[in-house]
């Protein structure tokens, strides 16, 4: 087993952010790259959870602001402990080792370097009740020649044996609106002044949706 790099725990830190939208950018080699712009952080640490006290290591971080009158008194008391003003969203980031950060520390996009790999966690766009062709990309039948079988699901199983419909049979239903993680997206550019991260490719959710930006979990040799 190789030695774990000293920055391993930093790699798994995450930020809360907002999807701004997509555009294109020229990279260092004059190639036009599709990017998603994410406004991430600054995220103050509101609570540090340790394995001794809480059973696991984690950082609770906040993002954005909310009007004070919209906070419950419970939330107010919780934020008072870390001396934070009214934060819009709180999320927990699980960590393997005990985090170096303390309550009140602020995490920002300088966590991520250019060319690093990140995972983006978000909620996909809701698509409502959809059929199997759109939802599971099944083929569907011929459009014409009297086939009478266009976008239906077809057979859902056999007869008396097994005598029931198999589990996970693909059927129409609600599509989208679920948490999804896109792994190993390349960071094209980091703007620490404006708290922006430009990530190659697309990410789940609509513009303006909340996303988590995490250092990639499954990178080779812990390298980004």
């Amino acid at each position: 087993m190789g030695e774990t790099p000293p920055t391993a725990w930093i790699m798994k830190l995450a930020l809360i952010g907002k999807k701004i939208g997509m555009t294109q950018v020229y990279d260092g080699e004059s190639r036009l790259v599709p990017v998603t712009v994410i406004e991430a952080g600054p995220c103050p640490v509101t609570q540090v959870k340790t394995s001794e006290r809480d059973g696991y290591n984690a950082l609770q971080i906040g993002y954005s602001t909310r009007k004070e009158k919209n906070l419950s008194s419970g939330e107010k008391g919780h934020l008072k402990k870390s001396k934070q003003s009214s934060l819009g969203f709180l999320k927990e980031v699980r960590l393997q080792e005990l985090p170096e950060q303390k309550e009140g520390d602020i995490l920002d996009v300088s966590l991520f370097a250019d060319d690093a790999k990140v995972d983006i966690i978000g909620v996909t766009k809701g698509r409502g009740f959809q059929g199997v062709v759109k939802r599971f990309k099944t083929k569907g039948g011929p459009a014409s020649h009297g086939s009478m079988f266009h976008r239906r699901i077809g057979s859902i199983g056999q007869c008396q044996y097994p005598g029931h419909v198999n589990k996970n049979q693909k059927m129409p239903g609600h599509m989208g609106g679920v948490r999804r993680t896109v792994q190993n997206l390349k960071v094209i550019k980091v703007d620490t002044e404006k708290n922006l991260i430009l990530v190659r490719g697309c990410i789940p959710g609509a513009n303006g949706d909340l996303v988590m930006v995490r250092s990639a979990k499954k990178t080779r040799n812990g390298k980004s």
Partner: protein
Amino acid sequence: MNAIIKEISDSQVKPEVAPFKVGDGVRVHTRVREGEKERIQLFSGIVISRKGSGIHETFTVRRISYGEGVEKVFPVHSPNVVKVEIDRESVTLRARMYYLRDRIGKSANKVKEKRLVERGAKI
């Protein structure tokens, strides 16, 4: 468009672009990398379309090369498109000159030149 997106896109856009339009005969200078070496490659022909806006804007150049029609699409704001020279200006009635694709022989390169039109020739 979102203000942040606009700012990022606009920062990539070239401050000055040659004012060529559809129908013009142009010479496009592109930077080509071959291994370690870099050189300038020329592609000349007629601009048959120019579409998109901002960072996404592209133009298509068509020419007849050894009897075969060749088209190339260039991003207007690419750093690899070093220079666009305008050989001859023209006057067109179309925004896209796709009809040139169906033409063979001499007429394939025929666009109304501006200097002739100004002298009173019919479009």
